[in-house]
């Protein structure tokens, strides 16, 4: 029997430390907006938070079907949190498909707010359900709040001139209002947002604001819930000004900032691909910053145009995802051989080939480090979160121009589309790395190296400095050379140069003791999850520490020493053990334990803590 929640008359206000809420509905139901608004409001309330948008594959699936379900999960907390939460406390389900697709992740005893208006026979059929989950016992063990949101929104907007269809489209704000009430959130932020968003359509501002208010009021009037909750503001966040930022936005800012710090104009060559496309879109909107963006005919043209821009003395940048990376390999090799700076942004997605373009995975690492013909070394960095993406992008720019080398920046779908509160950086503290172009022909040689192993950069247009370069092996003067010793020497020089990049890293930071039973080494977007898992494990009394690897290649010089402090090193990755392979190949004497997950979904904290437990108990 399904436990149907009866409206009660007492409404106690209960304090909670953290809540994980998941909004789920059809792609057309506006769940991403609902989630972002809840996020924004929670941020302004002062909670720490982390989000996980989870939208369907690229094609709009038919309304009401399982593949059409769009979800947005967020955790908001009075404490320092690191993940959007393993399992939601609350599921808001706008239709049967959203309910069945998400129910299995919900905490036992969790709350389900369901839009009963969308549980008609046709709705069930669309979701391929034979029986109604509201009635067939599927919800046993959960607390269910049934609300006919479809009807309520029509009632709430009875006075509006809008068409019935347009009214129905306001139901996400009704739902949001309801959840604001439950979690005692203020309405102002969303009210203002609506006013700006629909500035040109006052009737929509009005209707959506009414919907929000009506949903909020419904909490009081209809006595749907047994109580309200409050999640107080956190003390964990450092003081400062915050805003939400997602990873692709951060990368775009990082490109602008990095280029400014180098004193160069950024030139992006790109071709749209999920989930990298929005970097191109973000940067295209920043023309007033002198950013050149070119949408080219394909990924090869994109990277070549970026290299061309670097040849011409700008900071060439290209952005893409896995399949596009595969196409760029040959041209990347030219940048290595010609020794030109270049920033290659790879926003990883799931699977071999086209795979699952909207899902998360970290499986381009080996491609990034090794995926080119010949011995073609290149530094590789990885961002760990939306906010971190900015800093890592800037550092990638620095390496590119300081070492005259292409640099690969790895992010993933989880970072790209996830957003988090971002403590706005003090720009004045960022260290400049201004490029000095060579202008003096005296003693100049095209491939003469400086102390770091880097070569001079000459900007075409400079008098008396004309040079010719290319992808054939060349000598120090840049002239073609097939001399055996020269090839050996240039190969060695290119390798050494990239190795030298490691000399510019800060010391590796070990979180926890520097000696212990297990070190968890993570990279990329699992940082938050691994952080939480190691905190939990330490609280459970385990001797576990954590290192996060920002520089995937070359590896930090001090890593070997860090590893010496531990009996084993656990490497959780959303791929089939790619970093673990690289680590083993470089430091075979350490005991690396690969923990692989390839589902298109991030790790759960519990998966990692359990893995830690298993290792340490054996």
């Amino acid at each position, binding site marked *: 029997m399904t436990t149907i929640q009866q409206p009660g008359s007492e409404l106690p206000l209960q304090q909670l430390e953290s809540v994980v809420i998941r909004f789920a509905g059809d792609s057309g139901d506006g769940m991403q907006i609902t989630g972002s608004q809840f996020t924004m409001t929670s941020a302004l309330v002062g909670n720490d938070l982390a989000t996980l948008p989870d939208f369907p594959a690229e094609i709009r699936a038919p309304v009401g079907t399982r593949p059409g379900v769009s979800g947005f999960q967020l955790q908001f907390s009075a404490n320092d949190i690191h993940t959007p939460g393993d399992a939601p406390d609350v599921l808001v389900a706008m239709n049967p498909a959203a309910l069945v697709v998400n129910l299995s992740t919900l905490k036992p005893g969790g709350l389900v707010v369901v839009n009963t208006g969308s549980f008609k026979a046709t709705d069930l059929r669309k979701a391929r359900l034979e029986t109604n989950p509201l009635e067939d016992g599927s919800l046993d063990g959960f607390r269910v709040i049934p609300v006919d949101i479809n009807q309520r929104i029509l009632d709430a907007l009875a006075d509006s001139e809008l068409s019935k269809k347009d009214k129905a489209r306001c139901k996400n704000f009704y739902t949001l209002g309801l959840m604001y009430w439950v979690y005692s959130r203020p309405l102002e932020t969303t009210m203002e947002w609506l006013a700006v968003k629909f500035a040109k359509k006052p009737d929509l501002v009005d209707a959506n604001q009414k919907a929000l208010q009506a949903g909020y009021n419904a909490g009081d009037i209809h006595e749907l819930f047994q109580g309200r909750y409050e999640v107080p503001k956190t003390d964990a966040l450092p003081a400062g000004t915050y805003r939400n930022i997602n990873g692709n936005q951060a990368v775009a800012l990082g490109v602008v900032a990095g280029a400014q710090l180098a004193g160069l104009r950024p030139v992006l060559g790109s071709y749209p691909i999920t989930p990298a496309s929005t970097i191109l879109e973000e940067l295209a909107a920043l*023309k007033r910053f002198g950013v050149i963006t*070119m949408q080219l005919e394909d990924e*090869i043209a994109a990277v070549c145009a970026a290299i061309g*821009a670097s040849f011409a003395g700008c900071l060439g940048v290209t952005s893409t995802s896995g399949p596009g990376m595969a196409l760029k390999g040959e041209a990347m090799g030219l940048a290595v051989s010609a020794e030109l700076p270049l920033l290659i942004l790879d926003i990883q997605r799931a699977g071999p080939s086209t795979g699952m373009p909207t899902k998360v995975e970290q499986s381009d690492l080996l491609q990034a480090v090794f995926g080119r013909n010949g011995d073609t070394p290149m530094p590789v960095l990885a961002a760990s979160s939306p906010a971190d993406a900015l800093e890592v992008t800037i550092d990638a720019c620095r390496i590119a121009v300081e070492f005259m080398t292409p640099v690969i920046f790895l992010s993933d779908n989880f970072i790209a589309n996830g957003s988090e509160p971002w403590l706005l950086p003090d720009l004045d503290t960022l260290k400049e790395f201004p490029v000095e172009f060579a202008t003096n022909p005296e003693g100049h040689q095209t491939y003469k190296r400086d102390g770091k192993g880097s070569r001079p950069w000459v900007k075409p247009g400079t008098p008396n400095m004309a040079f010719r370069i290319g992808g054939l092996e060349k000598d120090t003067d840049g002239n073609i050379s097939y001399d055996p010793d020269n090839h050996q020497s240039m190969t060695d020089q290119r390798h050494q140069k990239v190795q030298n990049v490691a000399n510019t890293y800060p010391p590796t930071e070990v979180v926890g003791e520097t000696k212990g039973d297990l070190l968890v080494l993570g990279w990329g977007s699992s940082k938050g999850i691994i952080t939480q898992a190691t905190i939990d494990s330490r609280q459970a009394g385990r001797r576990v520490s954590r290192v996060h690897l920002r520089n995937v290649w070359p590896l930090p010089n001090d890593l070997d020493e860090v590893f010496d402090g531990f009996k084993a090193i656990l490497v959780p990755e959303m791929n089939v053990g790619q970093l673990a392979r690289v680590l083993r190949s470089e430091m075979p004497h350490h005991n690396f334990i690969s923990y692989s997950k390839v589902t298109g979904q991030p790790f759960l904290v519990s998966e990692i803590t359990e893995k830690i437990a298993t290792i340490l108990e054996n």
Partner: protein
Amino acid sequence: MSNQATLTKKDFQSDQEVRWCPGCGDYVILSAIQKHMAEVGADPSKVVFVSGIGCSSRFPYYMNTYGFHTIHGRAPAFATGIKAANPELDVWLVTGDGDAMSIGGNHFIHALRRNLNMNVLMFNNQIYGLTKGQYSPTSPEGKKTKTSPMGAIDRPFNPISLALGANGTFAARTLDTDSKHMAKVFSAAHNHQGAAFVEILQNCVIFNKDFYNDTVAKDVRAEKTIDLIPGEKMIFGTESEKGLRVNGWDVEVCSAEEADVWDPGTDSSAPAFLMSQMDDDPNLPMPLGIFRQVEATCYDKAVNQQIDEAVANEGPGDLKELIWSGNCWEID
């Protein structure tokens, strides 16, 4: 183009040994370009030669200007980045029929439609020279090579037709054996604001020797070709006695007096296309000279103009402001 009017052809020669086969048509083209550069008083420090891979693509190494010998087929894409980054540079692209029309076909047609302000010199020897003599996308049907021992079955591209089909704004054809004609065509291309595509028929003496002799050898050229000169009547023949004129859907041979005047600047590129299709008609001469020449938006300029406009309209970007924009909140 600059104040260095005193430079000579020699100043455009680099110190690298030129390494084409003796007798290769590439030598004459190199020389013609170096001469052209000196004649227009080009500033070597403002000139960039970009190439792909192929015999022809070694060209940049021999020019005492900036040069980038890139990868096979991608030169137009590199040039796009170079020009967008610095529209002041005088960019020349040197490519072969394989480099431009086989692996590089896509970048080629896109660079033309974008009308990047550069000059594209395609050395058409109807063969892959560098890889030792395989047929190319411009080799005629039936061509026997090592990879087509029974004759090529691929129908070839007509490079001028392809350029026009790709919405190119300038298309011309010239000949490695005729330095004067090359000079004329190079000047027109150089003056053109936009992507100036020049097909140069070039002799690969090793793998496709004299392939063009049926049409352009001294003794037949006057009868078998016609020089398209903007604003002049379309006249050919040993005695310049013949002409061309349109008649309905077709073009036909007429007397010199009856010849139409050639205009490569019509709104529609259909007349130029009509001319290009004469190649396939044994009864009509093969055109050399300027097929098409029209003004249009140049990609490289427009890219930079949008930036200027954005700055003019919204003010120069302030990174701090940008970062601080949006919904911010304070935690203290």
